[in-house]
């Protein structure tokens, strides 16, 4: 196995969501979201009705993958932080524990300094939560809910 299966349980999800919700307030952010390195959205908070988080998640992961590729060529481990400044919106992207990506979108109501500061604290908390989660996933007995599905279930999905 290349990577352990990514699984999200209710307990850890709630902990993550609490951190993300607080980061929106503390950093005066518009939107905060967490994506895994494969582009799957894990959690989001803030003004998410007005942004396409699925697309943003996939593009963020692509961006981190491309930057990681550049780092490798320069014999760097990773470029853990990225910042994109626009006219109205800015994006701060932080790699957390080399596992997930924390994205903060903010405007002139906040500042890069504040975002950086709050992201640093949130990253530490998130890293801890994801470490626990990963351990839980690797425990024996943490079976996939899909172990019980039948071929018929799968076929039914494709019946037009």
């Amino acid at each position, binding site marked *: *196995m*290349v*990577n*352990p*299966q*990514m*699984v*999200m*349980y*209710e307990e850890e*999800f*709630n902990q993550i969501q609490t951190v993300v919700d607080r980061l929106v307030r503390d950093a005066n952010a518009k939107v905060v979201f967490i994506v*895994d*390195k*494969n*582009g*799957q959205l*894990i959690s989001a908070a803030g003004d998410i009705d007005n942004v*396409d988080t*699925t*697309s943003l998640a*996939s*593009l963020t992961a*692509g961006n981190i*993958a*491309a930057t*990681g*590729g550049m780092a490798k060529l320069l014999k760097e481990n990773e470029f853990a932080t990225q910042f994109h400044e626009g006219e109205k919106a800015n994006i701060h992207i932080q790699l957390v524990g080399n596992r997930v990506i924390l994205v903060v979108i903010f405007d002139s109501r906040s500042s890069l300094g504040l975002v950086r500061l709050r992201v640093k604290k949130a990253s530490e908390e998130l890293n801890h939560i994801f470490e626990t989660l990963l351990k839980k996933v690797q425990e024996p007995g943490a*079976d*996939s*809910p*899909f*172990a*019980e*599905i039948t*071929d018929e*279930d*799968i*076929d*039914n*999905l*494709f019946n037009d």
Partner: protein
Amino acid sequence: MSFINYMAREINCKLVYYGPGLCGKTTNLQYIYERTNPEAKGKMISLATETERTLFFDFLPLSLGEIRGFKTRFHLYTVPGQVFYDASRKLILKGVDGVVFCADSQIERTEANLESVENLRTNLAEQGYSLDKLPYVVQYNKRDLPNVASVEELRQMINPTSVPDFEAVARTGVGVFDTLKAVAKLVLTELKKGGNG
């Protein structure tokens, strides 16, 4: 690497369309996008050059329905087919759950097909995957063109391990959904076995 979210009760899987330049990977996704109900799909994103050649990837999120109360979502990606974009191709394969190899059936593309399938095998191996263990299907595209190799010949060259394969004309949609369904089924079957990761 699929992502099971107990909280949202959904499962997310990543499918990658691989193949030589201009074989029709993006066309496959475009057809799927056009023919899927709006509620079952997200926005299709294409990171392409000004001449509409894929630069990094195309992305299309799809919902297939529910299995045992879990929403099944598939994220479809294409890679850039042109040989010199190899570094980007490797990145797209990260975390892949299933692969579609899209071959160009035209006789003059024989070598390009072989080179691409070999490149797929190498790039997967670099990430620690084996093409022989991954959910994998082959599509012989552009069957409507006059100068195509026979399916038997293509099968021998590109599909020696006899994975499920399909004839297609992606432009008009022939074989497009058959290919998608086949690989999606294999991915779900793999999840059922619990061998995915």
